[in-house]
């Protein structure tokens, strides 16, 4: 199982690739939309890339609850441990 920091770091690389946000800005307390300017279409791309990278499923209904990077990291951590 990946550590919280490993998940954050992997997610940061994905956000950087999709949206061009510097990976070091992708911290747990940041909001995808308000702080990182990740729009809804880019968020779909981030989710699909994260599913593939971390080997988890993130249903569309759950995506809307992932407001911050911390929300997404916790979701992926739980899904991996499930």
């Amino acid at each position, binding site marked *: 199982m990946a550590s919280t920091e490993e998940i954050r770091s992997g997610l940061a690389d994905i956000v950087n690739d999709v*949206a061009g946000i510097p990976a070091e800005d992708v911290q747990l307390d940041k909001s995808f939309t308000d702080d990182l300017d990740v729009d809804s279409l880019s968020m779909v791309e981030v989710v*699909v890339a994260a599913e593939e990278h971390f080997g988890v499923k993130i249903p569309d209904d759950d995506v809307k609850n992932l407001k911050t990077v911390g929300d997404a990291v916790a979701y992926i951590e739980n899904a991996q441990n499930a």
Partner: protein
Amino acid sequence: MPSALPAATRVVVTGLGATSPVGGDATTTWSALLAGTSGAHRLDDEWATDLPARIAARVAVEPAEVLDRVKARRLDRSGQFALVAALEAWSDSGLADGGADPERLGVAIASGIGGVTTLLNNYDKLLQKGPRLVSPLAIPMLMPNSPAANVGLAVGAKAGVHTPVSACASGNEAIAHGIDMIRLGRADVVVVGGTEAAIHPLPMAAFANMQALSRRNDDPEKASRPWDVERDGFLLGEGAAVLIIESAEHAEARGATVYAEVAGAGITADSHDIAQPDPAGLGATRAMKRALEESNLAPRDIFHINAHATSTPQGDVAECLAITNALGGETDHVVVTSTKSMTGHLLGAAGALESLATVLALKHRIVPPTINLDAIDPAVKLDIAREQRSLPDGDIAALNNSFGFGGHNVAIAFRSA
């Protein structure tokens, strides 16, 4: 001949941009055309192995080297080309520093086929990995109006953004649409042009199966040879070209540098066949005549024609006949060329790139050569430029022809500034 539109608004060209098989910008492209440089290459990709035609003219500079990475990944390749060319033209016009009212600024950027590589690449993902992996950006990338819309966003155009689609006549039709927007009072400035990115096995197989492509696979630089007796089809090219056109009044008020006047357009349809041109070139003849009429030009005013001439056995000769008929036989002083001999055929971008070449020919009074014309077809009675040719001083005019599958014919008339 008097114009049907008395006192029509004069429209001028004030900016140029291109990314083509022979250069990453307008200046490099023009120098390469004057030097007779071919942009053709053999396709060494694995996907090309089984194709009947394994040659093409890719852009000289990959757009990924020029555009911001994140911006580029949200655009189809055709949209990338259009944005590169449009930003260059916009900057060249001086309008990037201000001077255009967004509500009086329009866009008409054409494409023949649209985002075909995005469509097909996403279909591959659908088959291989399922619907979840189809990009949420696929629709805004593949829609044919995507390049025009993205250029509109980049320059802040709010007077209307359009995408004429008429196969290989599309680029010229976009220019015609831009002229209309200005003459109808809908815009002062219009970003016009065309883009195409169709070097992919499916369109290449389809064109080859139509017997449209040259199969000179062992000698790609010799493949595009308009009017030569050994021509055997066109060479597929890719890229984009964009012109900034505006009312002469608007250009003058802001002290813009004018390359040439875009005097008028002639648009006709053959109503003959979906793929074959009218063998007598009647539709093409009428397009050129109407361009002259709309522009208040007489045949003796035309000193240069950038022909559609794609290097196909029938089309090249039919166009020559059409030129002779349109000018009433007054062709002795007309220098004709086909820059497709160097760039290949850019389909929906062809009219735009060749209009750019026509504008620069009028400005610099030089006609680029038609390369590979080793033995001219005896049916061709026109003066074809085999090397650089000079044009006379004074007030002269030129035509650029584009014809497309579907029977579309669009001629644009330009006048020296």
